[in-house]
C-alpha cells in the first residue's frame, strides 16, 4: 500500500517547524526517522495534510555531557546512541536497551525523539526514560517547557506533547557512583517488539537496593513503573522479600491479553525478570526458577 497524498515541507529550524505545525493545525505531523510514521501512513492507519520534515535541523542532533547531565538531541539516531562512548559511560541502561531496538537498518534512521513521541507501549526507550528519571525538553509556540518522563507518557501512543509542540532534547542524570543498570527483554523472534521487558536502575547497598526504579514495557498500555515492588526491595534481600516483590507486581502492572501472550504469562515473565534483575544488581549467582 501507499500513503494517501499529503503536502511536504522541510523545516530549517525548530522555530520554523513549530510555525508550520501551528499553521497545520492538527493536520500536520513531524517526520523524524520515519520508522514508525511512514509504515503507519503506508498502511493507511493514519493520514495527514502536511509532513514537516525536521531531519535537516542539525541542532537537534548530538550527545553532550554537561555537569552531571547527559543531553541528547531529539534527532539523535538509535545507531548513534548505540556507539556513543558518552552513553556507554553515563547511561549504560540506554546502551543496553538500544541494542534491542529493531534491526540495524531501522536503527540507522530511527531517532530517540521520534521513538519517545510515538510512545509505543512495547518500546524499550520510554521505559528507560522512566527508569533513568529523564527530563524531556519541549518547544512550542509559547516557548520551551520541561516535562518529567513520569508525566510525559500518558497511555497507548499518548504523550504530553501538544500537536504543535516538538520534543527537542532529552536530559538524563548521569549514572551516579554505585548505581547499576539491568536490562532484559523477551521476544519470540529476535528484533521484534518485546512481549515483556524490564529496564531497571538502582543502587545496591549490601544486600538491599536503594533508589530502585523498575520499569516494564510490553506489559499494559504504557511503560509501567513498579513503585510497590521497588519499595519492598529496599529491604534486606531474602527469598521471602523477593517473593513479596514479585507478588506486588500484580498490583503495579496491568498486563494485557493478546494473541502474542496471555496476561498470566506476561505476569509470570515479569516476575521471572524481576528475580533475574535483583540477582544481577546484587551481584548474586542466580538460582534457576
Amino acid at each position, binding site marked *: 500500500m501507499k500513503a494517501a497524498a499529503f503536502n511536504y515541507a522541510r523545516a530549517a529550524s525548530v522555530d520554523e517547524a513549530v510555525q508550520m505545525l501551528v499553521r497545520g493545525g492538527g493536520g500536520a505531523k513531524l517526520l523524524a526517522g520515519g520508522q514508525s510514521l511512514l509504515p503507519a501512513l503506508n498502511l493507511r492507519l493514519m493520514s495527514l495534510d502536511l509532513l514537516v520534515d525536521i531531519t535537516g535541523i542539525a541542532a537537534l542532533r548530538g550527545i553532550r555531557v554537561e555537569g552531571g547531565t547527559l543531553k541528547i538531541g531529539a534527532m539523535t539516531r538509535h545507531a548513534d546512541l548505540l556507539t556513543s562512548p558518552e552513553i556507554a559511560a553515563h547511561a549504560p541502561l540506554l546502551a543496553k536497551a538500544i541494542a534491542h531496538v529493531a*534491526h540495524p537498518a531501522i536503527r540507522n534512521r530511527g531517532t530517540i525523539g521520534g521513538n519517545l513521541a510515538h510512545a509505543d507501549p512495547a518500546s524499550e526507550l520510554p521505559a528507560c526514560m522512566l527508569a533513568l528519571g529523564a527530563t524531556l525538553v519541549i518547544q512550542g509556540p509559547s516557548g520551551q517547557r520541561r516535562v518529567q518522563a513520569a508525566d510525559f507518557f500518558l497511555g497507548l501512543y499518548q504523550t504530553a506533547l501538544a500537536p504543535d509542540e516538538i520534543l527537542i532534547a532529552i536530559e538524563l542524570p548521569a549514572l551516579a557512583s554505585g548505581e547499576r543498570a539491568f536490562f532484559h527483554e523477551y521476544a519470540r523472534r*529476535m528484533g521484534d517488539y518485546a512481549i515483556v521487558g524490564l529496564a531497571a536502575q538502582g543502587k545496591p547497598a549490601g544486600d538491599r537496593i536503594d533508589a530502585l526504579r523498575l520499569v516494564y514495557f510490553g506489559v499494559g498500555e504504557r511503560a509501567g513503573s513498579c513503585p510497590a515492588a521497588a519499595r519492598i526491595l529496599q529491604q534486606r534481600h531474602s527469598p521471602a522479600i523477593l517473593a513479596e516483590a514479585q507478588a506486588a507486581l500484580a498490583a503495579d502492572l496491568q498486563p494485557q491479553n493478546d494473541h502474542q501472550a496471555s496476561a498470566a504469562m506476561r505476569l509470570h515473565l515479569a516476575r521471572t525478570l524481576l528475580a533475574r534483575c535483583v540477582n544481577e544488581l546484587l551481584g548474586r549467582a542466580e538460582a534457576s526458577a
Partner: protein
Amino acid sequence: MTMQAIGKPHSRVDGRAKVTGGARYAAEFNQPDQLYAVVVGSTVGLGRILRIDAGAVAQMPGVRAVISHLNAPRLAYQPHKGGTDPANGERLHVLQDDQVRFYGQPVAVIVADSLDHAERAAAALAVSYAGETPVVDPLDAKVQPVAPQAGRAGADRSRGDADAAFAAAPVTVEASFDMARENHTPMEPHATIAAWSGDRLTLWSKSQFVVNEQAEIAAIFGMPAANVQVICPFVGGGFGTSLRTWPHVTLAAIAARQVGRPVKLVLTRRQMFHTTGHRPRTLQRVALGATTDGRLTSLIHEGSGETSRYEQFVEALTSTSGFMYSCPNVRTRYRLLPMDTGTPTFMRGPGEASGMYAVESAIDELSYKLGIDPVELRRRNEPAIDEAEKLPFSSRSLMQCYALGAERFGWASRDPRPRAMRDGRLLIGWGVASASYPCFFSPASARVRLLADGSAEVEAASSDMGPGTYTSMTQVAAETLSLPLDKVRFSLGRSDFPATPSHGGSQTMSSVGSAVRAACLAVQAELAKRAVADRRSQLFGASIDSVEWREGRLSRKGDAAAGPSYSELVTGAGGSPVEAGASAARDAAIAKQYSMHAFGAVFVEVSVDPDLGLVRLRRAVGAYGAGRIVNPKLATSQCIGGMVGGLGMALMERTALDPRDGRPVNAHMGDYLVPVNLDVPHLEAHFVEEQDPHVNPLGVKGLGEVALVGMAPAIANAVFHATGKRVRELPIRIENLLDV
C-alpha cells in the same frame, strides 16, 4: 575440452538479473492502458451475502467496475483437475453465487484507474451478510472426520497386527501431537496481470505450474487452452502456494474482460492468508511397541488434517510410516476434518514434514524409555527393503547420513541425560531426527535449438521459485552438449513452452532435467542425421552408426581426429537453427521394481533459558542422501532454506484464527513469525555420495522438501533433551515450557 558442468558449484546464471532488478516478476509486466483490480473479501466466516451497495462505490473517483456475483458473468467451470488440485471436490467458483464458505472469500472485485482508487472503493464497498458461526477449530466437537475418498495417498494401511503387538510389547510409547496451521508467506505476493485480445487471454501470473494455469483458466472460461498464454519467468518464493491456480487469477481475467482493458491484480499480504492455501493443522497419535533391546514390534500412526467443505485436500501425512523402520506390525490411518475454511494446499514437505514430526518425536521418546541412543535406535530398526511395498529401495543412504551427520556434529560427546548439558545458565539440548521424501519423476518435455554461432537455446515450461532451475538446467544442457555454460541459454515460465509437471514435489530436477537431457540428445541426433545426409558436410555419406558426438564435435567412431562443431554443422547446412524436442518419463516397470526416496538425518543444538522458556536454535547439521548433486552450491543453499523453514515450523510459525469467524488474526509479517537472520545460526548441509541409476537418467533425487522434513522433530527432540519436558505441539512456545 572436457566438459564437466554437472556437479560444479556454479553461481546462479540469473543471479545478476535478480540482484540488479533485471528479473521481472508477475506484477512487473505492466501493460499499456492497464487498470487495477482490488479484491473485496468476506468479513464473515460463513453465511450468505444479502446486499452489495455497488451503486455508491461505482460513482467514486476512478472506479470503472464493481463486479460481484450480482453482475459477474456465469463462467463455464468445465471439469478440470490439475495434478496439484485435490482429487475430490470442486474448486471455489468465484463470484458465481451468494454463499460465503470461509472468511476472506472474494465477494467482489473493484476495477479502477489507479491502485489508490481501487483500494479506496474496495474499502468503501458495503456488503451485508446473513452470517453464521463457522467451524474452524479441529478440536470443535462439531467437526466430523471423514476418510479421504480414493485419492493419491493410500492412507489406511496395515500389515501384521499392530494393535495386538502394541498391547503385548514390553516397552511402549503412545503420544498425541498437534501441529499449527502454517501459511507459505513467500516474499513475492500473488499477482496476475490479465489482458484479452479478442478471445485470446494472456496472463502474467505468479505460478509454479504455468501449463496447469493455462488449462485451468481455459476450463473455467470454457475456451480452448491454446487461446490462453501464461507467462511467469520468475517466482519470488513459492513453497507450494503457487502450485494451484487460486480464484484471484480468474478474477483478474473476469475484470479485464469486463472493462476491455488489461487489469492488474495483486493480493495483499493479508489476503494471502485467506485464499491461497495453507499447511493444514494436523492432529496425530503415534503408538510404538518395542522389545527391551529396541526392536520395533508395533508402529501405529493415526492422523487427521483440516480441509475445506468443498474440497478434500489430501497430503502424505502417514505415507512414510510404512517404510522408515523395519517393523512387522504397522497400521496407519488418515482422516480429514472438513471445516469452514479455504482449502489447504501443498506446503514444502506436504504431509511428510507433519507426519514425520510425530513419528520421529515418538521414536525419540522411545529411545529415552529404552536407554538407547536415538541414532543407535534407528540403526537397530533400519530396514533392508521397503516393508510396506515389499520392494527394494533404489538406494537408501539413511545410515550413511547418520554417520556423516553425527561426525560433523560431534554427536559422540553428547551426554544422553536430559538437562545434563549446560552453557552457563542455559540448558543445552541435542536432538536428531530422520527425513524422507519420495523421488517423483513425472512426464516432462523440453526443446533445444542449436544456433549457427554454436550456442544452444533450451526451453521448458517449468518454473524457478528459487532452487536454481535456470542454473541447473543450463548445467544439464551444457554437460550433455559439451558446451560451456555461457553457450547455453535456458528459458522457462511460458505455457507455450514444452509441458512440464508442477514445480513442486521436488521433481523439477528429475523430470525437467531428464527432459532437457533427452532433448539435447535428440538435437544431436537430428544434427547428425542431417550431417550425414548433407552433401556440403565432411561427414556426408557416413552411416549414422559410424559417427558419434565427442566433446561437442561430430566425429567418426574410432577416428581420433575431431569432426565438425555445432557451429560448423549448422552454418554449413545454411545457418538456420536446428531444433528438436523430447520427452522423458519414468519407466513404468522401474516404478514397480523399486521404492524410491531421498533420505536425510538432521542434528540440532538448542539452548533453553529455563526461567523464560526461551528456545534458540544454536546450530544444525543436515546430512542428505539425495542422489547426484547437480550443483553443490545451489543444493547447500536449498537445504539451508529448508532448514530455516523447519525452524519456523518448530518454534514460530502459526496461523491463529479468531474462533468467532475464522479470521486469521496474525495475517501479516509482523505477527506471523518467520525466522529472521538473527534467529538463524550456523547451518550446515552435507551430502553423502550416492549413485542411483534407477530414479531417473540423471540419478538425481530432489532436495527441496527433504531439506525441511526432519528439522522440526530434531528441534523438538533437542528441547526435550535440554529440559526433560516433552512438548507435543508445534510451534513450541514459551507457554509450553513454562506451564502458564
